[in-house]
C-alpha cells in the first residue's frame, strides 16, 4: 500500500461509521445509514467534506459522530451537517460541536442553504466542560442558527431523537421534517420526567413526531420513511432562493390539476355552510405544485407553498371545513411563522379569506387570543413582499385585518362575487344594534322588523357598493381568478418597499 492508498484506506475506514452491531440495527429498523441519507439528498458527482479525521485517534469514534460538508441539490450549493447514530448514538462531543459551528459559518460566508440531518442522543455529559458552556460550545450552534435565520434557508430533517439542548436545532430551523416512529424532540426524557416531576408518559406521547406535527406545532411535515423525508427536503428547497437577496426560480407554468371553470360551483353561496378550501387551491395553482406546511396542525387555517404560472407563492387560506375557518391561537401562530418565512425569502403571499373572525369566549381569551391575533396582524403588516388578498366569502371583523385586508398594504384586494366584508354577519349585527327594540316587539312584528333590518344591512355592504367606494380593487369572476393572479403576481414582481429606519419592532408574541 503506497502513501496515497494509505490515506484513502483510512478515510474508507472512517466512512464505515460506528461498530457493526449498531450499523446492522439501523438497517434492521428500515432506516438509512447516514451516508445513504446523504447520497439520496445530494446530487451525485460533487461534494467536499471537512473534519473527517475528527477524533480519528479515538478508535471507533468515526468523524466524531457528525458529517459536515458542502454538496449540491438540484445543481445548487448547500451546506449540511448529519449526525451518525452508529457512532456513540450520534451524541455531541467537543469536535462534533466545532464541526457543526464551522459548517454553519461556511453557509453564512457562501450564503447558501444549511441543512441539519439530526439523529442524536444529545451531549456527552462526560465531556461537558469542553462542549457545553463556552464561547464555541453547543450554545453557539443555536446562536449561529439565529444569525443564519432569514439569511439563508435552514432545513431540519429529524430522523431520530433530538433530546434536551439538541431539541433546539430543529426549533430554530425554518422547517422540520419528522419521520414517524423514529423522530422525537423533548427537553427531558420520560425517564427524567418521572424522576423529576413524577409524571409517567411515553416517548411517543411526550415527544413523538406525530404529537409535534399535530399538537405542539414543533414539526412541519410528517413522513413515514427516511427516504420520504429526504425527498421532501429536495422538493421544499426548490421554492426558495439561496439567500434573502435572491428570488425563487421561475419554473415552467403548468395548468391546474382541476378545472378553474368549476370554481363557482364549489363555493357555497350560503355563508354559513362550510366547503373545502383545498378544492379551490387545486383549481388556481399549477398542477401538483402545492406543498402544504403544517397540514396536521391548526387545520382551520391552511399554509403552503405553490406555484401560479410558474411563480412561487406562499398561500395563507381559511379552511371553512375545519372549525368553520375561525382563527384560534394556534392558527394565528401557524400563519405568523409562515408569513415571516415567505417574507424573509422574497416569496409573494396570497391570502384566501373566508373567515368568521377570531374565536371568542372565555377559553380563548385566557389563552391570549388578542395577543396571538396581534402577532399575526403584525406579521402581515411587516411583510413587504407582493401581497394579494382574495375575499372568497365572508370576512368579519379582525379576520379582515389578519387576512391582509386593504389597510395592510395589500397590493390588491380582489373580491369573488360571493365576497362579504363586514364587522360582523347580519344576524349578529342587527341583534347588536337593535337589541332593545327587538325585545320590545312581539311575534310577526318582530320577525318582520329583524328581516327588514338584515336586508338593509346587506344592502349597505353590497359588493358593488364596496367596489365603488374603492374598498376592493376588483371583482373577479371565479373562472378568471387564476389568470388575474398570474397577471398580478407577474406585475408586482419588481415591488420594493423600504420600511422606516429603526432597530426592530416589538412584536407581540
Amino acid at each position, binding site marked *: 500500500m503506497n502513501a496515497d492508498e494509505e490515506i484513502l484506506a483510512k478515510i474508507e475506514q472512517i466512512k464505515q461509521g460506528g461498530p457493526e452491531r449498531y450499523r446492522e440495527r439501523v438497517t434492521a429498523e428500515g432506516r438509512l445509514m447516514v451516508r445513504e441519507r446523504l447520497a439520496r439528498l445530494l446530487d451525485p458527482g460533487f461534494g467536499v467534506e471537512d473534519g473527517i479525521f475528527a477524533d480519528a485517534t479515538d478508535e471507533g469514534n468515526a468523524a466524531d459522530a457528525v458529517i459536515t460538508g458542502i454538496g449540491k441539490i438540484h445543481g445548487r450549493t448547500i451546506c449540511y451537517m448529519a449526525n451518525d447514530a452508529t457512532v456513540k448514538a450520534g451524541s455531541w462531543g467537543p469536535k462534533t460541536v466545532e464541526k457543526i459551528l464551522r459548517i454553519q459559518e461556511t453557509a453564512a460566508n457562501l450564503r447558501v442553504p444549511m441543512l441539519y440531518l439530526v439523529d442524536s442522543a444529545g451531549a456527552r455529559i462526560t465531556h461537558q466542560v469542553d462542549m457545553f458552556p463556552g464561547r464555541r460550545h453547543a450554545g453557539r450552534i443555536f446562536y449561529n442558527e439565529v444569525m443564519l435565520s432569514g439569511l439563508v434557508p435552514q432545513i431540519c430533517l429529524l430522523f431520530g431523537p433530538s433530546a434536551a439542548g439538541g431539541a433546539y436545532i430543529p426549533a430554530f430551523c425554518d422547517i422540520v421534517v419528522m419521520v414517524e416512529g423514529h423522530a422525537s424532540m423533548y427537553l427531558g426524557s420520560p425517564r427524567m420526567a418521572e424522576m423529576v416531576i413524577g409524571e409517567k408518559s411515553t416517548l411517543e406521547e411526550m415527544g413523538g413526531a406525530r404529537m409535534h406535527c399535530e399538537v405542539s406545532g414543533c414539526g412541519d411535515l410528517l413522513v413515514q420513511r427516511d427516504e420520504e423525508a429526504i425527498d421532501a427536503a429536495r422538493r421544499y428547497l426548490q421554492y426558495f432562493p439561496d439567500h434573502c437577496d435572491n428570488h425563487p426560480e421561475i419554473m415552467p407554468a403548468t395548468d391546474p390539476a382541476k378545472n378553474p371553470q368549476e370554481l363557482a360551483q364549489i363555493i357555497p353561496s350560503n355563508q*354559513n*355552510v*362550510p366547503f373545502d378550501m383545498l378544492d379551490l387551491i387545486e383549481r388556481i395553482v399549477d398542477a401538483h405544485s402545492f406543498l402544504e406546511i403544517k397540514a396536521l396542525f391548526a387545520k382551520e387555517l391552511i399554509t403552503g407553498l405553490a406555484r401560479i404560472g410558474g411563480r412561487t407563492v406562499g398561500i395563507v387560506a381559511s379552511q*371553512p*371545513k*375545519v*372549525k*368553520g*375557518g*375561525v382563527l*384560534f391561537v394556534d392558527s394565528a401562530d401557524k400563519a405568523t411563522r409562515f408569513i415571516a418565512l415567505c417574507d424573509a425569502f422574497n416569496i409573494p403571499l396570497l391570502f384566501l379569506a373566508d373567515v*368568521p*373572525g377570531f*374565536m*371568542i*369566549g372565555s*377559553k380563548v381569551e385566557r389563552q391570549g387570543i388578542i395577543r396571538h391575533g396581534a402577532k399575526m396582524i403584525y406579521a402581515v403588516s411587516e411583510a413587504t413582499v407582493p401581497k394579494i388578498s382574495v375575499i372568497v366569502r365572508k370576512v368579519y371583523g379582525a379576520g379582515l385585518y389578519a387576512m391582509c385586508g386593504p389597510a395592510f398594504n395589500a397590493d390588491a384586494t380582489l373580491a369573488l362575487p360571493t365576497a362579504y366584508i363586514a364587522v360582523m*354577519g347580519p*344576524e*349578529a349585527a342587527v341583534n347588536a344594534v337593535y337589541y332593545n327594540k327587538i325585545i320590545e316587539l312581539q311575534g310577526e312584528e318582530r320577525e318582520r322588523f329583524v328581516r327588514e333590518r338584515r336586508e338593509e344591512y346587506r344592502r349597505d355592504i353590497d359588493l358593488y357598493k364596496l367596489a365603488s367606494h374603492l374598498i376592493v380593487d376588483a371583482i373577479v369572476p371565479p373562472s378568471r381568478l387564476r389568470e388575474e393572479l398570474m397577471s398580478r403576481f407577474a406585475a408586482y414582481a419588481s415591488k420594493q418597499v423600504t420600511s422606516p429606519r429603526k432597530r426592530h419592532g416589538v412584536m407581540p408574541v
Partner: protein
Amino acid sequence: MHVIASPMAGTVSRLLVQTGDVVTSGQDVVILESMKMEIAVQADVDARVKAVKVSEGVFVDEGSILLELE
C-alpha cells in the same frame, strides 16, 4: 371506550345519530353552531354509538364529550 369531543365552544345544532347507530370514520355525527357557522363533527373511528351525552340546543365547551362510542 372511545369518545367524540367538541372541537370548539358552541351550541349543539343537530344530532345526526342516536344510541345504537353504527358510524364509520369520517361520517358527520353532530352539527354544532358556533361563530354563526355550521361546524360538522365527524367520527374518527368505525364504531357503535354507546351514548349521546348532549341534546340539541345546549352549549358545549371545547373538549366537552358529545358521544361515547364502542
